[in-house]
């Protein structure tokens, strides 16, 4: 809905939304949904890889955000970072709890590889930050590592094992990839 990345919406607008959520204003939750649901749903869906489960996790995440908003500390980072982390952790818990881990490990890897070759998915919103643009910034090896770490819930050593790479290589790739992404914002 916006050309502006959620991570850099004006802090004043963000603070206003947070204080309305803290004041238990339900219309603020509706507004939060309208602004953030596509981004959160995208991340969750990417992790659980099943639309019905993604919907459940999104709902859980919204309830959790509502109850935990008091503990959000704007001094530690942007609202989007905080809410994505909540959603991401719930989604990762979900795949861990369904013992999905073992069977999906290889699937996750295949998926991240095919994603690099395929065009952006149909549901992808073209007016948003282009997935394509991001892809161009990262070499496939970097993207593979970031996808495993961020969407797969792997630790760096698990990713090293998964990709059959030395831990040092995984760490370097993750760092370079994150630095490339960070530059997009500067």
């Amino acid at each position, binding site marked *: 809905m916006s050309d502006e990345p959620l991570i850099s919406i004006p802090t004043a607008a963000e603070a206003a939304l947070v204080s309305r959520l803290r004041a238990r204003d339900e219309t603020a939750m509706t507004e939060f949904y309208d602004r953030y649901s596509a981004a959160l749903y995208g991340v969750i869906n*990417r992790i659980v890889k099943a639309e019905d489960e993604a919907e459940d996790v999104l709902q859980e995440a919204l309830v959790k955000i509502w109850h935990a908003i008091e503990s959000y500390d704007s001094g530690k980072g942007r609202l989007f*970072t905080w809410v994505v982390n909540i959603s991401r952790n719930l989604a990762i818990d979900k795949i861990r709890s369904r013992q999905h881990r073992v069977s999906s490990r290889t699937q996750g890897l295949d998926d991240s590889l095919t994603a690099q070759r395929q065009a952006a998915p149909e549901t992808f919103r073209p007016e948003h930050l282009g997935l394509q643009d991001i892809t161009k910034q990262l070499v496939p090896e970097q993207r593979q590592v970031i996808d495993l770490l961020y969407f797969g819930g792997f630790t760096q050593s698990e990713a090293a094992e998964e990709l059959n790479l030395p831990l040092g290589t995984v760490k370097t790739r993750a760092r370079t990839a994150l630095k490339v*992404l960070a530059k997009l*914002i500067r």
Partner: protein
Amino acid sequence: MENYQEIIESGRLEQYALGELDPAAQAEVEALARRYPEVRQELDDLLAGLGVYAEAHAMTPPAGMRERVLGRVFADIKNAAPAAPIVPAAEAPTMRVSASNPHVASTVAPVATPATRSNGWAIAASVALLLSLVGNALLYSSWQKTSNDLAVALNEQTRFANTTQVMERRLSTTQEQLHILRSPQEYKMVALAGTPAHPTAQARVMYNKVSHRVYLDVAQLPPLPPGKQYQLWALDNGKPVDAGVLTATTTAGEDMQQMKDIASAQAFAMTVEPTGGSAGPTLNTMTVVGNI
């Protein structure tokens, strides 16, 4: 101590961003970020980069999901709400005291019984016990009343604090709106008049070209069909830019709403779009429009 360059090079900030650190290590990174602005900057960049990456995977949720999910979220919130803020009642301590009273009696009584040598002592002990029991009962009932009063007072205090918070929020919103309305040099009023299809529709936009803030105030809009929402557009060199969807209260004209920031515009217009808004305006639903 470490200098900020070493911290940045250590790789800990990346681990923090990916959520790999335990709470203690997290707190350590946060403390370093507070101490060194350079570390804060680097960490913010990393988090922002990852945020952009996350958002690049954004997917519009399937149709119908908004109502389902929000419905269940609100139901969940309402269920949880009454349980949470209630001040713990005085039951727990009450139980403890009433349970201890019989114990006092039973421990004192056996001491009194063997003392048959002197009836006087037994009577004195009984009287003492009786007085003590009566005293305990009086103290207990007065204590119970005080503790009930305290619970009521705490409840009142919580309720009052909540009300104050709500009132403060309303006051600051009102002051902000007043400021907008009273600063014609900061905020340009843009009257949005109804299109021929909706001649009675009327609204206005307050637009600040410097801060890019946009506020909307509805005078009158036709009622919406179900599943639809009004969406505001800024027209910049003829190109429509999404300025956000109107909440129900704004649509009803009950409140002013801050819309999305708009960098540049020559006109504003409003259309009817599916709930949640559209990427581009549905032109034949244009309800009001106005030039700056």
